[in-house]
Structure formats: C-alpha cells, structure tokens
C-alpha cells in the first residue's frame, strides 16, 4: 500500500515538475527568442504557453508586451493597428485571470500610449486622462513599482515640455524610479522587470 501511495505521489509530482519544467523551458525559450529580435516567434511562443497556462497571467501579459513594443517600432507602422489589437486582446485575457494587477494596468497605459502615438489628434484628447488614471490606479496598488513611477513621469514629461512648464518634478520621479528598479524584486524570474534602461535614458535627457 505504502508503495502504491509513494508511487502515486512520485508520479504526480513528476507530472507537475514536468509541467513546471515545460513552463520554465517555454518561457526561457520565448525570452531568448525575443532577445534575438524575432518578435513574431516570441509572441507565438508566449501565445502557446498561454494556451496551456490558463490560470497564469504572465504569458498573455508578454504577448501584449511584445506586440505593443513592436507597434512602437516605426518599421511596423503598416501593421501597428493589428499589433495593438493583438496586444489588447491578450491583455484583456490576462486581466480576466488577474484583475487589479498593477503590471497589467501599466501595460494598458502602454497600449494607450501606442494608440496616442498612432493618431495624436484623435486619441491624444481622448486617452490622455484615462492613461494618467491607469498609472494612478497602478501606483495605489503598488506604490513602489518602478514601472508605474517611471511610466507616469515619462507620460507627463511630454505635456510639460510642450507647455514649457517645469519638468523637474517628473525628472525627480524618474530618478526615484531608478532607485526603485534597483530595489525591485520580481515574484518569480518571469515576472516583469523591464524598464530600467528606458528610465536611465529619459533621466539622461531630463531637463535639457
């Protein structure tokens, strides 16, 4: 009897470990692929992982992140709308799995920003206020999240530069976000960690 139980336990843990291993391998491969610059393949890999990991928001989150990042690339101007749509669909799926998630709110703000870049005249007026609100909601949930701090400051710098108002408070926030990046510990190795390089870049040009 004991043996049967032991066997079963071992069997089950093995299955679970194998799944976990597959997940880790899959995510690892997807990140590696993305690093080589093959965004389509990376997005496809994340999409496949999402089809298995029905209760994990991360794969869908990365489908959104990869496609939004692609939408910002001027080379993809022709497909930008389709990329943004794909990102939005994936993020909606992620939000269903994990509501009130600061990272997902920040990602939504990024998608909004991509829409604004696409058609500033129409979307700028419409989405500016909701985007700020998304960052504020994210900050309420996670005051120490460096991406929320940086994202909001970065978004506000654009407006402030135009109006000739002082960008100093925003730059201070960017600097603060860099400190937070150093302190930030993701829950797992696959949780979002991006943004430090962009924050450093912004700080370099800040106030100039």
């Amino acid at each position: 009897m004991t043996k049967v139980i032991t066997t079963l336990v071992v069997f089950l843990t093995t299955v679970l470990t194998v799944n976990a291993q597959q997940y880790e391998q899959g995510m690892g491969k997807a990140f590696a692929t993305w690093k080589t610059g093959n965004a389509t393949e990376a997005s496809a890999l994340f999409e496949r992982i999402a089809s298995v990991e029905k209760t994990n928001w991360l794969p869908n989150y990365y489908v959104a992140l990869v496609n939004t990042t692609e939408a910002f690339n001027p080379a993809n101007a022709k497909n930008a709308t389709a990329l943004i749509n794909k990102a939005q669909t994936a993020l909606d799926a992620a939000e269903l799995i994990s509501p009130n998630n600061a990272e997902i709110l920040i990602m939504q703000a990024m998608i909004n920003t991509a829409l604004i870049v696409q058609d500033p005249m129409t979307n700028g007026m419409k989405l500016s206020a909701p985007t700020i609100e998304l960052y504020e909601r994210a900050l309420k949930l996670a005051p120490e999240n460096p991406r929320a701090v940086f994202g909001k400051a970065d978004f506000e710098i654009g407006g402030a530069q135009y109006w000739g108002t002082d960008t100093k408070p925003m730059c201070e926030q960017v600097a603060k976000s860099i400190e937070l990046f150093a302190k930030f510990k993701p829950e797992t190795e696959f949780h979002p960690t991006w943004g430090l390089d962009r924050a450093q870049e912004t700080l370099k040009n800040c106030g100039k």
Partner: protein
Amino acid sequence: MKTIITFLILFISSFGISQTKISGKVVDEKNNPIAGANIYIDGTYDGATSNEIGEFTFSTSEKGNKILVISFLTYETLKTTIEIETYQNKTFKLKESINTLDEVVINAGTFEAGDKAKNTVLKPLDIVTTAGSNGDIVSALQTLPGTQTVGESGRLFVRGGEADETQTYVDGIRVAQPFGSTTQNLPTRGRFSPFLFSGISFSTGGYSAEYGEALSSVLLLNTTDMATENKTDISFMTVGLGVANTQKWKKSSLTFNTAYIDLAPYQVAIPQNVDWNKAFQSLSGEIVYRYELERGLFKLYTAFDASRFDLNQESINSVVKTRVDLKNNNLYVNASYKGNFGSNWQLTTGLSYGLGNNKIGLDNQRIENTEHASHLKLKIKKPISDRIKLSFGADYFITKFDEKYSFITNQTGYNSNILAGYTEADIFFSKKLAMKVGVRAVNNDLLNETSISPRTSLAYKVSKSSQFSVAYGEFEQAPRQDYLKFTSDFKNERASHYILNYQFSKDKRTFRSEIYFKDYNDLVKYDTQIAQYNSNFNNNGFGFAKGLDIFWRDNKSIKNLEYWVSYSYIDTKRDYRNYEAEVTPSFVAKNNFSIVTKYWINDWKSSVGLSYSFNSGRPYDNPNEMSFMNGKTKSYNNVSMSWAYLLSQQKILFISISNVLGTQNVFGYDYANSPDSNGVFQRNEIIPTADRFFFVGFFWTISDNKKDNQLDNL
C-alpha cells in the same frame, strides 16, 4: 518487478511515448504562403511558426482528437479538430480578418464624425472649432456638401429637402423638437451642446431601415459612453455664462451642463437689424447619467430649455410693426440601454419623451401650442458569423399636439401613433465587397396608412484606399405639424433616393464625391396664402432633386494646417404647398461652396480658424412678374474667423467673428399681399439679424488631470 514498473511509468510519463510529426502549409485566400503564422495544438506547448514559404512542422506526443489552432495577425484565427494518429500533411487557408481597418465600409450618403467610426471625415472637435459655427452642431454641418445655408432659418436643409425632412436621434432615439423655437426669418440653433456627444453621424440620404419618419436626412448623435474624470468647466461669454460638472464613480458617472444666455448687453453694444423689445434670453441645461451594468450600459439623457424674446417685426403689409413675443419651454428625456445577452445578441432599447410648449403673442392675439412626443424603441442585433450581421427592431412614435388661439374659439390639434418594424442584414462577401439590405414597414393610425420601404446599399473596394458605394431606398414621412393640425386626411409624403459614391482616403487626405437622384411624391399641396383651417389640402405634390456633392479634406500637405473644402451642385424642382408650377424652391441655391481652415500656431499656442462660404443666388417669387418664382437674389458670401488662445493648459480665450467683411447678404424678399396705388407689389429684404456676430469667451477647466481643457467644446 514493482520497481521496474514504477520506473517505467515515471519514464513514460516524463518523456512521452511516441511522437507524431505534424506538418503542413498555411496560405491566404489567394494561395499565397503566410510566413510567421502560429500553429499549435490547443492546451499544449506543441507547435511551430510557419516559415517563408508558409510551411511548418512539429512533433507532438498527444493522442486522439485535438484542436489545432492557427493564428496570424491580420487573419481570422482558424481552429480545426484533427486526429493526431491519422493526421496527414495539409494546407490551411486563412481568411483575412474583417475586423481590420482597411475593410470596405458602406458609406453612401453618410458623414461620420466620431472616434470609433471607420469612415470618419470629421472629428468631434471639428464640429465645434469651425469658425462661424459658434458651437452649434448644425451650423458646423452646414459646411458639408449636400446642405444648404439658409441663414434666416438656421436648420438643416438637405439636398433639396425642407428643414423638417431631417430627423434627429440621440442614442438612437428620436428628438421631436431638436431646435429652439423662433419666429419667421429669425434663425434658430440646435438645442444640443456639442460637448456631450462623442459621435455624430450625418446622413444626406440612403440611410438604414432603422430610421424612419425622415424624407431627406438623419442626424444621429451619440452621448459619451463613460466620463473619464471628475472635472468642472466654467465659461464666461459675451452672451452669457455656463457651468458644467462631471462626477465619476466606479460604475457610473453624471454630467450636468447648464448655460444662461442673455443677448441684451451684447445687443446694446452691437447694432442690430432687428427691433428688439426684449433680447433673447434662455436658461438651458443637460444632464447625462450613465451606469455600467454587468453586460450593458444604461444612459439617461435629459435636456431642458426655457427661452423667450420679444420684438417688433416689420411687415410689408402694414405700416405698424407687429409685436411678436415668444416663450418656449422644452423638456426632453431619453433613457436607453445597450447591452448583450445570450451568445452575442445585442440589445438596444429605450424611450424618449419630449414636451414642447410655446406661448406666442402677435400684437394682441395669443397662440399657445403644446406638443407631447414619445418614442419607444427596441433593436436586436445578432452576428450570425463574422460576415453576416442581422438586426431587427420596432419603433413606436406617439405624438399629441394642441394649439389654442385667443381669436378663434375652436382649437386645433391631433394625436398620432406610428408603429414601425424593420429588419436588416449586413453581409460581408469579402474584405472588398459588402452589402446592406433592409426593409421597414410603417403603420400610421392617424393617416390610416401602412407602407413598406425597402432599402439597400452596396460597397466595393477597388483599391487599398478607394471604394465605390451605391445606395437605394424608399423613405416616407407623415406631413408636418402645420398641416396635420388642420386635417388628417393625408397620405405619407414619400421620396426615393439613388446614390452613387466614390471615396478616396489615404494618409490623412480624403476625397469624396457623390451623385444622387431623389424623386419626391405625394407632397402636400393647399390652395391658400398660408396653410390654414379653411385650406383645401391634397397629396398631389411632387418634385425631384439631383446633384453632385464633393468633399476634400487634407490634414497633411501643409504642416499644422487642416482644411476641408465642400462643393455642391443641385438641380431641384418641386410643386408643393401653394406653388403654381414645378419650380426650384426659395431655400435652394444651385451652387454651394465652403472652405474651412484651422491653423495651429505652436509659438502662440493658438488655433486660428478661417472659413468662407458662398452660395449662388436663391430664387424668390416676384408677384410683379408673370412667371412664378422667377427672381434670383444676389449671391451669398460669408467669411468668418476664430482664434483660440491657450493661456495655460486649462485656460482658453476664444474669439470669433462671423461675417468679418460685413457683406450685406440678402436671403430673399417678402412681398406685399396686394399692390400699392401704382399697381406695384412692394417688398422687404430678408436679411440677417446683424451683419456681424462677435463672440468672446473665457473657458476654464478645473480637474485633477492638468492636461484637460475645453478646447474640444469650442
């Protein structure tokens, strides 16, 4: 032994058993390979991405029937069940996704202004930043082709149609009294603050079977779905004051907007062509409440408007002026719900109630009229597939109108109930070819008439940026209040529309041209000077309208400059009312031209607008001449300017001047009823109430988000 079995089980479970190779090819509808498509077995890590020639191959340890998913950016995701063991190399065809931007759009006859609309020619902002429009939705629409500038009326005249041939809908529900009350030759304006609407669709013909009781045109206004933030807007204007406030909660939001307008101080400062006893005064407001439900959105829109004026109107028929004073009270309530139920069924329903009351004094005589108008609406929409969408619905219109006179004992009025049902299908044959077919059936119990109106339109995309559309439709409308109040012995008035449209749109430039033919039948005729209780009415009137409308918009060629140009040519004649023959009516100018420009000056943080409109002369009837409606006024010219200066992010100064050049425009002539002692009929010019109109306003927004301002309200 047991250990071995255990080991085997573990081994098998860890490394899988036999692997099956799945391979194939992904192509589009024209058999061109699709590279980069994502192919995988649903719920597994097993999959691949197609290569340059569309081919893919991967291994799986799955068994039995599984779902194979194939997805690619701009194509419809394909899900197909395969049996792993017997799977053979296959070619999969993906259909282009219809939900992408470059699909064909059925747009014959329609101008969209909204952020969601795909064939937008104007943005909501444009409606209100147009120089000379002074925030009036209708006067901005008059810069679009197909409309007539009828300065003495202020309403929408579309393609040879009278003003009351245009029906206005808010969130799909009719507004019975869309314009403020006024007297003869004194222009009115729309009741709606442009700031509450996020989408405006203006159709100059061939519209959907969803809309009835309109011979020429429908104006569809959609209130904003959800407020984005709490804010307060304050406006100080040369003509009055305004306050608006928005409160936002988790699932609901409330916006109210109120304005007090008093033209008295303004009219003291600026000379007027009208002899006012009491200048126009109004207190108006709107409230929008929105509540988000699990699967839908509830909206309540309420508008009220109390206005009055008192003036002495010159008349060619008497030496003494006629004193006209008018008090108007208007209330409009509109409740609507839009949501989903079941699997993908979409429900739109709602009801509206409009109360319009006018107290009019003409010297010592008093007239009072009251209209109660309701509309109940139900619409159901169901996408059968991505390519076929079916909708059907019903309307019930109730109107009760009464008019009392101090000088006649009997009162006039009527009760009318109209029941209508319609059904319509949108069919996308491909990304290039789409069709809309519908039919509307109407029963009017007052006229005791049932009629059926078929409508259809077709659009074909010839290249990535250009398309043709055609539309045909039958339209009916009950005769207007001015006639129905005397008798109900009428039939519906009817019109047929035939439209051919070509649109080219690329890179922030849009060219649109439309030719149309309209056939009018069963128009009301009568045999007296004006329609009155002893007139003999009949439905023997008829007419036609044909013409060409051209629109060009360019936001790209010159940096920071946006402009649009409209030109309309119309040839129309009708024999209706008390006309002696089939002639071009007096509200029609054969040639209409307008250009609207907006230039953004970055260094000044200013948006400067300039617009120019021109009409060729309009016909008028000169009783001194033998032939009917033979006169022609001189042409109409108007240059207007506006300047919006952003003092700071939330403070705006706005200045506008209409008819800068002070052109002396004449809309037409009023002739005396009888000739003078020399046998000549004397006349009066019908002219604008003032040659120029000046407007200065200061707008201040107070909100958490410092980026917001009222620029989009101007």
